[in-house]
């Protein structure tokens, strides 16, 4: 049993390693918002790092999955996300349409392959 598998331990981890490091940006935005230039070179770098980080999260969830997703072949995982992006671009840049297309591809593929987690 690790520390964060208990309810109280997990709550402390959420507060100290999730809430505080995340909330600091919102507080800074309130306190120094009028003095920060969102177009500065420093903020551009920070935005690039934040974007790369989010892309890395997606890639890790897709390529190195854990839990029930391991049962899905890599081609189907990547194909579902790719068709979702295509659906988003084709159907008037609608996020909902993209999500629905990806989920339809995924469910059909998983059902056809007989996947059960």
């Amino acid at each position, binding site marked *: 049993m690790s520390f964060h598998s208990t309810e109280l331990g997990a709550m402390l981890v959420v507060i100290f390693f999730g809430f505080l490091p*995340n909330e600091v940006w919102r507080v800074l*935005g309130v306190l120094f918002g009028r003095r920060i230039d*969102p177009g500065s070179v420093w903020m551009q770098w920070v935005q690039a*790092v934040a*974007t790369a*980080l989010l892309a890395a999260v997606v890639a890790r969830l897709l390529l190195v999955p854990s839990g*029930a997703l391991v049962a899905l072949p890599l081609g189907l995982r990547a194909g579902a996300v790719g068709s979702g*992006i295509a659906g988003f671009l084709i159907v008037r840049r609608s996020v909902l349409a993209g999500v629905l297309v*990806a989920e339809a591809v995924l469910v059909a593929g998983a059902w056809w392959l007989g996947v059960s987690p």
Partner: protein
Amino acid sequence: MLSPQVSPPLDTAPPARWFARGMRGAVSTPGLVLVATFIGFGGLLHDLAFPIGAGLLSTLLIWALPAQVILIGGLATGASPPALAVAVCLSGVRLLPMVVSLMPLMRGPRPRLGWELLCAHFVAMTLWVEGFRLLPKVAPEGRPAYAAGLGLGLTLLSMAGTAIGFYLTGALPGPLAVALLLLTPISFAILLVRNARQAVDWLAIGLGAAISPLVANSPGGLDLFWAGVGGGTLAFFIARHLPRQRA
């Protein structure tokens, strides 16, 4: 862009009324898409055997799905909590320009620090988009209460989604349970494409995604850190040395 001269007529409704109107504003198409992604997050919590109470607390307090997935997904792979705090902190940077740009609309005519901090807490992708759509229609006196109501409404809906996903995923047949789990990466991928405007954004997406599997299981649980800082910095410098061109 926004002209304060054409603000709506004076409305003397009490803050509680504005708060309630804000909460009602949360029930909308973007609000429902948000609930769906939090149902996916709830499924992920169940899949990774993370306690539901702490999962709900993460939706209430962190209120930023990428940070929540980084933290809880990272814990499941055995990453060290301090390394995850660094990754969470880096992922939260995007909230700062969101708060800075939306705050003039949420602040109201008599700024109070407490209200500003409360409104800023609810700033995330959905409130940012919905705030620009809804707040200009609200009388300036009511905007802080309306924004807080909107934010709390979205948060409560998302907490309900988290709980539904957590308890639903065990009861669903295989293909549907898998669909629930992949909802989070699918919606993140689409939002990345939606928000990408310049070459640096596309480079950061490509490099971050490409480096991530290469550094998986790097010592100290720092793989997200390397992919984010390394890929982002590389994208930043490559974009600066590209010939200036506007599509």
